[in-house]
Structure formats: C-alpha cells, structure tokens
C-alpha cells in the first residue's frame, strides 16, 4: 500500500458521492460551481478544498427553513431544486407545490465554507 501524495483524491471521492447520492442536475451543478470557487481560492491545498467540500451541502430544518435556494427531497425520492417559498401547508419551488407532509429532507448550499473554516487563506484571486 502507498499513501496518496495529493489530496485531490478526496475531491474525486466527493464528486463521486455527489453524483451517486443526488439526482437533480441543477443542484449537482450548483455544488460543483461552489467547489470550483473554493478551488480557485486555494489552488495549492486540495486537502482544504476537500475538507470544505464536505461542508457545502447542509441539511435544513424542515419546519424552520427560510425562503431561498434549497434542494427538497420528497418521500418518493423526487428531488426539486431552486428558490423556495413556503406557507404552513406547502412549499413552492419553481413551478411545483409540495405538501410539507411529503418532504423527506431539505438541504441548502453553504457558500462560505472556506471563508468560515480558513479565513486566513482568503486572498484576491489573480487572473492569468
């Protein structure tokens, strides 16, 4: 056995899990864009990118989430992603209305993981 000398492997594992676990392509693309943003900030440190990657998708409380961008997974494992609004009975996402009782899980994309975990690595990203 040998050790990986690059921690980019952790990123590949993250992407692999992302694709296996979620079906909604818009959600997957948004997560990958956030991953790319983090990588641009810390191109030298794949381990830090990888660590932050696992903090991008955060579960939200079903009862308490605020209106905004969410991935909603219903009890039939259908996935809906986009900006949501809600009332006591339903949540409204894009053109869909989902009864609260059918919601299995809700997630949001955290867009400041690197800023929160490694504030000392935040610098201007230079253009080539």
């Amino acid at each position, binding site marked *: 056995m*040998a*050790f*990986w*000398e690059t*921690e980019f492997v952790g990123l590949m594992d993250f992407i692999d899990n992302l694709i296996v676990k979620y079906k909604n392509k818009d959600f997957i693309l948004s997560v990958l864009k956030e991953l790319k943003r983090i990588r641009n900030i*810390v*191109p*030298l*440190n794949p*381990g830090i990118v990888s660590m932050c990657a696992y903090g991008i998708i955060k579960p939200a409380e079903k009862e308490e989430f605020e209106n905004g961008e969410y991935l909603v997974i219903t009890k039939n494992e259908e996935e809906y992603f986009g900006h949501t609004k809600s009332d006591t009975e339903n949540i409204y996402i894009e053109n869909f209305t989902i009864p609260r009782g059918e919601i299995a899980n809700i997630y949001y994309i955290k867009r400041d993981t690197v800023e929160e975990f*490694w*504030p*000392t690595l935040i*610098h*201007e*990203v*230079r*253009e*080539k």
Partner: protein
Amino acid sequence: MKANKNDIYLVKGPSTIILKNGLFEVIGANYDSGNISIHEGKQIPIIVKEEGELDINGGSYEKLDHSTIPEKWYEIPKLIKEKSIKKILILGEVDTGKSFFTTFIANQLGNLGVSVGAIDTDTGQSDIGAPGTIGFGIFNKPHFNLSDVKLDKQFFIGNLSPGGGFSIFLAGISKILRYALSKVDSVIVDTTGWVHGDGGRAIKRSKLDIVDPDLVILLQRGRELEHLVQHIDRSKIIDLKVSKKASNTSQEVRKSLREEISRRYFENGGPITFDFNKVLFDRVYTKSGVKMENDNLDILYLEKLPAWEGTVVVFPDNINKKRRNELLGKFGKSIWYSPKYLKDIFVGLSDENGFCLSVGIIESIDFVNGKISIYLNKKDCEKDDVRLIQFGSIRYNNKGEEAGFVIPGSI
C-alpha cells in the same frame, strides 16, 4: 525585581527580560546577565539558580512551583555526546514545543563542548532562515530563540507547507543535511507538525528515510506518533511527554506569526533588476525551452517546450479574451498568462549550487527586453552571485503580507 534561588518564571511573549545579576538557566544555557526577547506566541521558562535581579517588560508571566523542563531532558545531551550521535530528528504534532526542545538540546550540547547545528524544516514559520525556506544554523553560542541562530545555509521551498510539493521539500532536506553534516558534529532536524493523514504519514516517513537518524525524539501527548516509528529500533527512540505548558496556537495567530517573520524580512528591501540572459528560471516551464520568433504584436513572448509539453505564450496585460482565445487556438497545448499574473510571486534567488541566497517578490517582468525586477532584502545577496530564480507557489505583497497562490504548472 528580586529573584530568589529556585524561583521559576514562565514568561509569555511579546516580552523583554533583563537579567541584571545572579545566575539564571534559560532554555538549557546559563547566564549571569543579558537581555532576552520573547516573540509573540512563544514562552520561555527562567530558572533562578543563584539569587539575583531581573525585570520582565511586556507580555505576561507566572511563577511556577516546579520546572516545566523534565529531568529526563538533561540526560539527552549527555547521551548524544557520549555516543557521538550525529543525526537527531525531532517529531511532534503542532504546538508540542519542538523548536523549544531543539533550542534546549543545542544549548546543552554547546555547554558540553559539542559543535551542533539545527535544520529548521518548518517553512511556514521559519525560525532559521528566510520564510519559505529550509534553513540551517550553527549554535556558536547559546540562544534564547531558535530564530536568533545565525543562518548558515538555506534551500528555497517557496511554500508554507510541505503539502505544496513533496519532492522539492525532500530534496531540500537531503541537500541541507549533507551540507550540515560537513560542518558540525551533531545536527538536530526540527520538523513540521504534519504527522497524520496520507500526506502527513507519507512526508514524515520519507523524511525519516532520508535523514536516517541515529536518534529520534518523540514529543507526544499520547501515542500519536508511534505509527511513524514502528520500523525503527526502539533503542534509537526517546519518547517524551509534551509539556502541559506548551502553547496552543490558533490559525489566526499562526498567520500573524508567519507575517511578522516575512514583514521583518522584507522591511528596508528594494528592487533589483535581472537580465533574462544572466539567470535561469527554475520550477516553471517558462525559459526552459527554445524561444520562438514572434512578430505578432498581440503576443509578447513565445517558447517551444520539449516533447508534448506544448508552447509558452505570454500575452500583453490588456489583451481581450476573444483575441487571446483566437490566438491560443493556433498553438494547441499551451501554457499561457500575462505578465501581471507574475506580480507578487514569491521567489528564491539561488547560487549555482542551488542554495538560496535570498528570497524576493516579483515586482514586474518585461518579456520584450528580457528583464525581471524583484523586491528583496538587498543585504542578503550580491546580484552577480544569483544564478537561479526559483519560483514559489505563494504570493506576498511588499509589506510581507500573504497575498494568495500560484496555480501549479501555470507559468
């Protein structure tokens, strides 16, 4: 203030201590008088061996009822001398007091008449040498801080962690160690605190193979280092428990300590301009192939790289994206950038043997006339001695503040 025999003070920096009279033991060395500067984030115990007077200015201190230095520590230098041990490697996680221990052992060895030097491999918080380098210094006299040891030789890494490039890091240790062994009886290798995960295990295991130490000293809280040394004869290992007084440094304080080192290094610096023809570029593609003729005004510099590596294309800073992509289409595989991308890159200025004379920051580069201007601490090197400009992976502004990264393989 009055200092009574057997009093022990633990002083936290930033602080200045004035030893007025009496006899004091400070990190393994004895003093009857003198001034001690303790940097921020560091702490030093002062043991009063004979009644006297001292003043502590700034920082904070506490009076302890027993020494933070275990008796066992005093036996190690005697063993090193008795067995003529040449290579000593110190292992420990972050904040386990490795640099303090290194200073203690070196001071004690000095007391015993052993010529001793230390290799500082912590490029993130370089005590010996410039930031981003592996440095070697000789203890010609006792020192309070590892950072007070005069630099003898350094190797440019260009990064604040070994994770940015294992091969350069290991090559640097090997090169500096060979040099150090030719200069002193005993060499202490002070290591970084990265000891876990794939990267930490790989780099430390390779470091052990390269150094091939006669003595390994573990500074452990529990058994966290055992995985690294299970192949080593136990008679070559000394296991020490970490002092509960070892300081715990946050991410922010670490950055501030790093920047303080680089700020001090670059203060009073200035630019020096080098001709492309008189220096080699190292650790980048640029200037490693064959320069190509170019009459296109939208391209500043063209170079053919060997085999499948493609072409280096340098565009003017103000080229528009559409025109740039149009031109890139003609070259196939290419490494491209504009001169502004090189600004603030941290570089090493090294001699013909690959030892670093000084570190600097790229101010500007003129591809048309073949000139590169580098901001550096001018007292560190003579321009004519510089043979290699070694590119690092990080950026600094000229105040010595960290200013970002360079994408590997992009230049």
